[in-house]
């Protein structure tokens, strides 16, 4: 018998599952708009329930044991859900993102008898389960359900490029699943239990153990593949760019960040007592994070296909999140969690703008769309605002997350990571602002290096009014900017400490106040260069072009789209993680 509010814990997972199954059972009897209505209501219900759970979890994590199997004699027999405040709020954010996405996609998928909504609701349930669980194998199950739902949702458009992207996505993420399963097997054999707390206790008793390090290597590799960290990031650009835009909103807004969320939870809670892992983590995470932030930003600037550009920008921001995690402190991880929510809101809004362009202008190519956005200028304002928020405009959740991460890194003296983060954010912001300027203001006649980037003729069904598509986009941006900073500051030390299972700290430090402005300035300079290239003196333009072209071609060639390459890089990545762990 579990007391309210712990009894609420299964509901955010069970309700979408029940509605999903009911919709499938009656798939051919459903009237036209019912799937949309049901799906939106379910997502809203999930968001509200998770919010209530998060508020109640402020005093301490809520725990629920499934099947009535409470732990006996210190041995965990059943599966448990353990929700701390931070996990609850992340789940609530996910529910809200889904609700707004369903509104955005209203009527878009009406030919499929609700199958899209079935898959999306399953995706939602899996994400919430992933946030809530305290069992390693249950984590894997929700990871796989997320992956399978994502695979099925990617190839909706059935164009040839969509198939290649979907296949690459499926194979790479399946390999991630296998790695994770191997890691779980190893840690189970060594510790005899599958529960987070049980494993943590056994790891603490064990001392330096190669099996624990091996298990962490595999599990971390799997989560970093999902989180699109270099050298595992190749699948994201392919898959993301070809999925329909409502699905892309979820991929970048929630799915990629959840991989890093999982990594944060597992490394802090399960492997928190392993000295070897904790010594290896800063070098590993900050190193990979810097590289990812820079590579993602650079590649974003070189794209002309908007969704591909946004995919690379997600990679860059995932790198920034990883550096925040690598600080291994309450402000670093807390900042990363706030960043997850802020980035999800802003990136989701950007993908909605991309969807609006696809539906109203029947193209997603930045160069082809030049000047054509004038008729839908509200979308242009949204895009410009989102671009500014991405590069660090000191307003809202994303900025707060950035400053917290920067504070954590500054405190520990990771100057390179700070610079990499600032540059990465500036590059991605520059790319988005340049695209906005080109599409909505008609600037930038000289295409520059972007002309050589991959692109495709694409369009999406144009059956929704502009306000129906723009509304959720603006709602996301409003949420990002609207949450009061004081609320976060007050709750964050307590929430992040509970998340990491560490004693509560008094306050968190923030980074230098001028850093966001530096990043914004750099982004505006970059966008200005891109847009006004033909007006600038040759003295300025030629050196920049010379530095850009050769590395550009090399980087673009690496992102070949061939699954064989991706598999080779996957092996290299796992070897890298193993090497860093061995040296720690």
């Amino acid at each position, binding site marked *: 018998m579990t007391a309210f509010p712990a009894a609420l814990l299964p509901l955010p997972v069970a309700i979408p599952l029940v509605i999903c199954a009911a919709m499938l059972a009656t798939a051919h009897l459903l009237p036209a708009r019912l799937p949309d209505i049901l799906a939106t209501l379910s997502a809203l219900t999930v968001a509200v329930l998770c919010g209530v759970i998060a508020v109640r979890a402020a005093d301490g994590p809520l725990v629920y044991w499934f099947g009535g199997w409470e732990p006996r004699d210190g041995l965990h027999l059943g599966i448990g859900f353990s929700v701390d405040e931070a996990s609850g709020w992340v789940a609530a954010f996910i529910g809200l993102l889904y609700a707004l996405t369903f509104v955005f996609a209203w009527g878009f998928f009406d030919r499929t008898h609700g199958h899209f909504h079935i898959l999306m609701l399953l995706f939602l349930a899996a994400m919430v389960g992933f946030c809530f669980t305290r069992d390693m194998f249950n984590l894997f199950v929700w990871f796989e359900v997320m992956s399978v739902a994502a695979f099925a949702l990617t190839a909706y458009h059935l164009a040839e490029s969509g198939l290649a992207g979907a*296949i690459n996505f499926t194979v790479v993420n399946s390999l991630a699943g296998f790695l994770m399963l*191997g890691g779980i097997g*190893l840690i189970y054999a060594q510790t005899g239990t599958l529960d987070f707390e049980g494993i943590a206790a056994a790891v603490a008793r064990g001392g330096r153990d190669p099996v624990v390090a091996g298990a962490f290597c595999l599990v971390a590799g799997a989560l970093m593949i999902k989180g699109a960290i270099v050298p595992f990031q190749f699948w994201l650009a392919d898959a993301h760019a070809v999925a329909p835009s409502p699905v892309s909103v979820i991929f970048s807004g929630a799915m990629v960040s959840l991989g890093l969320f999982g990594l944060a939870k597992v490394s802090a809670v399960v492997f928190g007592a392993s000295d070897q892992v904790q010594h290896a983590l800063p070098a590993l995470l900050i190193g990979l994070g810097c590289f990812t932030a820079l590579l993602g930003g650079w590649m974003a600037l070189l794209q002309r296909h908007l969704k591909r550009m946004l995919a690379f920008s997600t990679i860059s921001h995932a790198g920034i999140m990883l550096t925040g995690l690598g600080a291994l402190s309450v402000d670093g991880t807390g900042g990363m969690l706030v960043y997850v929510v802020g980035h999800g809101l802003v990136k989701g809004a950007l993908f909605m703008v991309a969807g609006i362009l696809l539906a109203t202008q029947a193209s997603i190519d930045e160069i082809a769309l030049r000047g054509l956005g004038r008729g839908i200028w509200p979308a242009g304002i949204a895009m410009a605002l989102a671009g500014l928020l991405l590069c660090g405009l000191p307003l809202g959740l994303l900025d707060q997350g950035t400053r917290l991460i920067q504070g954590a890194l500054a405190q520990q003296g990771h100057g390179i990571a700070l610079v990499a983060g600032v540059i990465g954010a500036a590059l991605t912001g520059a790319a988005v602002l340049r695209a906005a300027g080109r599409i909505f203001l008609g600037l930038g006649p000289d295409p520059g290096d972007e002309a050589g980037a*991959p692109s495709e003729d694409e369009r999406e069904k144009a059956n929704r009014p502009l306000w129906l598509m723009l509304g959720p986009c603006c709602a996301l941006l409003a949420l990002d900017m609207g949450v009061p900073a004081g609320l976060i500051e007050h709750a964050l030390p307590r929430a992040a400490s509970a998340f990491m299972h560490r004693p509560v700290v008094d306050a968190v430090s923030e980074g230098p106040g001028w850093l966001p402005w530096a990043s914004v300035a750099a982004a505006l300079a970059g966008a200005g260069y891109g847009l006004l290239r033909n007006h600038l003196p040759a003295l300025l333009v030629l050196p920049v072009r010379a530095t850009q072209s050769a590395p550009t071609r090399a980087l673009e060639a690496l992102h070949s789209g061939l699954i064989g390459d991706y598999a080779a890089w996957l092996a290299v990545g796992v070897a890298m993680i193993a090497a860093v762990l061995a040296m720690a």
Partner: protein
Amino acid sequence: MSVLPYAVAAWLFGIGLYGIATSRNFIHLVGCLGVCQSATYVLLLGLGYRWGGIAPIFYDHPPGTPAVDPVMQALVLTDIVVGATLTALLLVLTIQAHKRGGSLDPEKLRPMRAGGTSGRGQGASRVSDREQSTS
């Protein structure tokens, strides 16, 4: 002898990954992914084994007879379902790829062509102008 199951698991994963990296046929690639998955089966079942243990079903034997680890068996059952779903999805994608592209070669199916194939008139002509003047 006691390292053989684990060594076999590691080998299977490695050879499966090699197969994926050098595959020239999508159906072969799906098979290689299956080989990678078999590595996890061997690892899990090997970790759960006990010499002389019966299957964890106490129908013919009384409860309390030493049995192998039932948790690992349940994990492998889930793994098998995962494998079935992945194979089904990948084969469907392969069918569609063959229908659209006419080929089953991973090397020939690329997500997007570089240089942009956007058919919009003004964009294309401007691109070709600029490319000529800047190259």
